[in-house]
């Protein structure tokens, strides 16, 4: 029984980290419906940012989170204005195609600058706490992961309030639902998309900064998290921030519990299998609006 409960606890902790990665995608894709092949690369840039600032300036990632978020917001807006805005004129597949190009460009740009070596953030608050656990009823909860998880929850709350409770958020939703109607009431869709890209990119970069405390930093680091992030946003349902969070927790738990009892090589397969199963009964994910 302890094995099972511990696996659930571990899964919830990882789920919060996955939620952190998925939250940026929830805006760009979940809300604005733009597929971004390069999402994981922005996360990787966040990781490198955290590593770089830690090595060159000695900044703790919890601090460098803020300047990195600002810079990456700018990058997201730039990418939208220079590239995505243009490709929106064409087929939706062209958008995907464009982000494939972005993927190659960013990943190999980092390879060119930094090589493919594995790097690590050595000195930070969270790495210093790396073995520290809280034990609740025989179940171990790692403190650094807990901190990461709390940050994720905080960002989710902020995002939820932004999207559901502010005028700006309503404008975003309106643009996503019906662009032409939104224009009729005076919303400028281009501006909404640009901000969405900025926000989404900033959020996933922050996820990278936090993850740099736990994982090695290298140019190909984005991939494993990205695929899960896509599954999570779709499972939660498009347009639902709460759905993304719950889906992330579910994914973490499925992954963790199946790895504890079944062949571990299949743990991601079970996650995706769950997606298909749930999708058969709820074609719009858990809480999808469209």
């Amino acid at each position, binding site marked *: 029984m302890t094995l099972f409960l511990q696996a659930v606890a571990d899964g919830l902790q990882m789920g919060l980290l996955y939620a952190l990665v998925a939250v940026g995608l929830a805006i760009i894709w979940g809300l604005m419906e733009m597929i971004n092949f390069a999402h994981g690369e922005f996360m990787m840039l966040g990781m490198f940012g955290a590593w770089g600032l830690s090595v060159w300036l000695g900044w703790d990632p919890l601090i460098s989170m803020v300047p990195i978020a600002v810079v990456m917001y700018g990058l997201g807006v730039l990418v939208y204005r220079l590239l995505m805005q243009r490709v929106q004129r064409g087929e939706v597949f062209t*958008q995907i*195609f464009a982000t494939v190009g972005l993927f190659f460009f960013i990943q190999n740009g980092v390879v060119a600058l930094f090589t493919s070596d594995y790097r690590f953030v050595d000195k930070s608050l969270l790495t210093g706490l790396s073995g520290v656990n809280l034990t609740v009823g025989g179940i171990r909860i790692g403190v650094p992961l807990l901190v990461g998880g709390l940050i994720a929850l905080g960002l989710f709350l902020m995002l939820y309030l932004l999207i559901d409770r502010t005028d700006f958020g309503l404008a975003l939703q309106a643009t996503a639902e019906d662009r032409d109607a939104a224009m009729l009431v005076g919303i400028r869709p281009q501006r909404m998309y640009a901000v969405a890209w900025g926000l989404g990119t900033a959020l996933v970069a922050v996820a990278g900064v936090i993850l740099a405390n736990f994982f090695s930093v290298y140019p190909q680091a984005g991939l494993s998290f990205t695929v899960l992030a896509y*599954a999570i946003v779709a499972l939660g349902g498009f347009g639902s921030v709460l759905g993304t969070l719950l889906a992330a927790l579910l994914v973490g738990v499925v992954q963790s519990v199946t790895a504890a009892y079944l062949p571990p090589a299949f743990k991601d397969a079970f996650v995706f299998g769950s997606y*298909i199963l749930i999708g058969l009964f709820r074609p719009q994910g858990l809480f999808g609006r469209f």
Partner: protein
Amino acid sequence: MAWVVAALVALLYPIPFERSGQIYYETVGFLVLLNAMLGIGWNIIGGWAGQFDFGPSIFLAIGAYAAALLSIHLGWNAWLALLGAVVVSVALCAALTYPVTRLRGHYFAIATVAMWMIAQPIGATWRFINGSQGLFIPVAPGAGFVHGMLTMEFAGRGKGLGFYYLSLGLFVLTLLGARAVERSKLGFYFRAVRDDQDGAEAIGIDSRLYKVIARCLMAAVFAAGGTLYGFWALAVFPDQVLDVNWNILPMMAAVVGGLGRLWGPALGAIVLIPISQVMTTTLGSGPLAGRGIDLIIYGAVIMLIAGWRPNGLLSLPWAAWAARFRARAPAPVAKG
């Protein structure tokens, strides 16, 4: 007239390289034709039926493995194995796809990704296909060119030329098949589902059925491509046949050329693959090697093409150019 020129170029292309011994260029041609063929297959579900399919590589893998197993364990000839691979692939596609056609749009997209993600550990651990240690297709030694064309087994140097013509043949077959589908009722139903699924259902078109048919036509093409790939590489490894590039390169070729256009994938493949080869062999080598410069430029080129011609390169005024030397009225350009 344009057809004759294109056919002549395609048929004669490898000859100068055969003479100069630079077989590599024939292999580039093979890759172009293989990806063009896969692109046409993908176009059926992506361009015509308008569904997002990001996991077509599973059918390439199923095809490659089925053909390899039939060849190794039952000794089947490569062409028979190809047919077997197509049958297996279509059957599996129908079984897997029908349930998920409940999902629409991006949800369906993730379902195709999910199938790909599930296929990976199966490929890596399933004893029957030797898991990650791969299957190797033995080649009988000393066979000539004609024998090679009949069995896809070329001993020695005929390989480059042989596989070029094999891929050309399969490409033409796929093109003709796709053209037939495009002009048939099937093509009409696919486009109806893409343009307005609810409207199509309202007039009695079973959108789920046609999505499945479209995807299974693609699965057939990918299985054939997978067979061809297997006999070319002589080894089928799970991480190679399920590689992410098989998911995106056919789609890219279709998009670059012009989504939904019959010749789109061919044009896209002719543009994308030589560019990536040239860059790999120049920028990816020598003192700049290992820095990924060639891929940076490749990414930049893709972004440029996407930004400059979001509707694909076929949206350039080819029709006007073609109309200049056609005696009859220009044939209606199939609108995507």
